[in-house]
């Protein structure tokens, strides 16, 4: 749905050049939620703005829904942007307009008639659960409600793609959860493709099918979340499931990305006569799968065979750090 190849963005300042993005390839499949995570200054914002050409990449090609946006400009680019919704960190609502009128704004821009606008705004407000706030002004709403208005506005022109620029970063944890849930529901019910940027690992864990870790203008890692978690040395695994550093001898980090019916640990002690000691770790649901990452001390004469058995069973076994 979104295809970006070789994206570079260089800002020319008076005395020097700043490379904000240095060769990013991004592929977002239809109907998936793709999260780009990274520190501030990593280039996430630039990437997102290059997807709908709010910023024109210095090099590279962007295709959204088969249309090559980087080849467009002027009225044709504006028309293409209407099939891409965008949600903003600080909501970016028009304070002079009511909630209903904010949601109607993209429809006005697209030249939709008054009656049709009214009908569509009603639907959208219902979708985000704010029908009773239609006549309120943004200043009268809570942060979460403002973001719901922002989402309704982004969906007004029935986009195929939704870009989310740190949509939950200005919200408290509880509201964040409800907004993420809303995005996930919209993704499932409307088949909406979502590309989001965030600095919160938790967002990746909760709603993303695929993810990329961005650092200094490049993707360090990118792919389906479960695949990445099962990849040796994965940065994402370390970031989503940070394990405490350990200097315990014979410790290993094991990662599994599905639930197991057989009791692996007791199997280990029984079959290989090793001692197993769980040092730390976490088990959580990611992309609908039970994922765990544990630091485990395994000691005994048959240690190597025991670890081999775990690897054979589909677990990822790495040296603990």
């Amino acid at each position, binding site marked *: 749905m979104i295809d970006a190849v070789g994206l570079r963005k260089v800002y020319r300042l008076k005395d020097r050049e700043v490379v904000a993005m240095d060769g990013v390839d991004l592929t977002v499949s239809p109907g998936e939620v793709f999260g780009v995570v990274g520190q501030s200054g990593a280039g996430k914002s630039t990437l997102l703005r290059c997807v709908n050409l709010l910023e024109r990449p210095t090099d590279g090609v962007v295709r959204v829904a088969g249309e090559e946006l980087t080849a467009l400009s002027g009225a044709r680019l504006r028309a293409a942007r209407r099939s891409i919704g965008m949600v903003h960190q600080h909501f970016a609502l028009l304070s*002079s307009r009511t909630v209903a009128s904010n949601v109607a704004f*993209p429809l006005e821009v697209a030249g939709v008639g008054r009656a049709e606008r009214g009908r569509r705004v009603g639907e959208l407000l219902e979708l985000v659960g704010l029908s009773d706030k239609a006549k309120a002004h943004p200043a009268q709403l809570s942060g979460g409600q403002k973001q719901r208005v922002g989402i309704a506005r982004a969906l007004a022109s029935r986009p195929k793609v939704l870009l989310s620029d740190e949509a939950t970063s200005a919200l408290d944890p509880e509201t964040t959860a409800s907004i993420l849930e809303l995005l996930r529901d919209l993704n499932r019910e409307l088949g909406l493709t979502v590309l989001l940027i965030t600095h919160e690992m938790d967002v990746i864990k909760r709603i993303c099918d695929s993810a990329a870790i961005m650092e200094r203008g490049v993707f360090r890692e990118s792919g389906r979340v479960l695949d990445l978690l099962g990849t040796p040395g994965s940065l994402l695994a370390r970031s989503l499931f940070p394990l405490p550093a350990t200097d315990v001898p014979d410790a290993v980090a094991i990662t599994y990305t599905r639930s197991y019916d057989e009791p692996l640990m007791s199997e280990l002690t029984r079959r290989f006569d090793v001692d197993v000691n769980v040092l730390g770790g976490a088990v959580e649901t990611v992309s609908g799968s039970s994922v765990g990452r544990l630091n485990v001390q395994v000691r005994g004469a048959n240690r190597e065979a025991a670890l081999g058995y775990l690897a054979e069973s589909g677990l990822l076994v790495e040296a603990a750090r």
Partner: protein
Amino acid sequence: MTFFDELAERLPEMGPVLLLGTLDTVYMVLWATLFTIVFGLPLGVLLVTTDRGGLTPAPAVRAVLGAVVNVGRSLPFIVLMVAVLSLTRLLTGTTLGPTAAIVPLSIGAVPFFARLVETSLREVDRGVIEAAHAIGAPKATIVGKVLLPEALPGLIAGLVMTVVALISYSAMAGAIGAGGLGDIAIREGYQRFNDYYLWATVICLVVVVQLVQSLGDLLVRRFSHR
């Protein structure tokens, strides 16, 4: 008898003069306000949109406009009035009376108002403008439906300041033959040593300014949703 009792006693005699003077002042100020909006609002918008990072960056245009505004702002009004006399004659056929005064009043207020418009527009959240771009809004729509409505309370407040400044300018214009309350205060009050006229015009001016300010505050509240 106190001064103000005496003032009240002379009111029937001064009343018609004051009323005419007030009407002349209102006439000058209203027309000048209209021209100030017509020329000052677009000028203020251009100052913002032609700036670096604006909707239609044009550094050269912006530099010229900025210079023009600064020249207008740096002339004391009394000097400006005299300086534009020939233009005034060209446009109105005379350099005397309230109609003639509309020309220098407008020229004096346009740069003032343009700067206030510029300041108000700059306060509009950049995120909102970016959102409008993301929605696919053309530049004219962004100016008409985002920038101006979002800045409306500030624009009204700026207009009120401009009108009050115009009332004050109009009194100065009175000194060189524009008529109005300033003219009465100078001619009757100052030159003929008639304190009653002087104070009566002061009261009239205060009342007019107060009315303008109150109306403006009301409108700002009405349109402010922050």
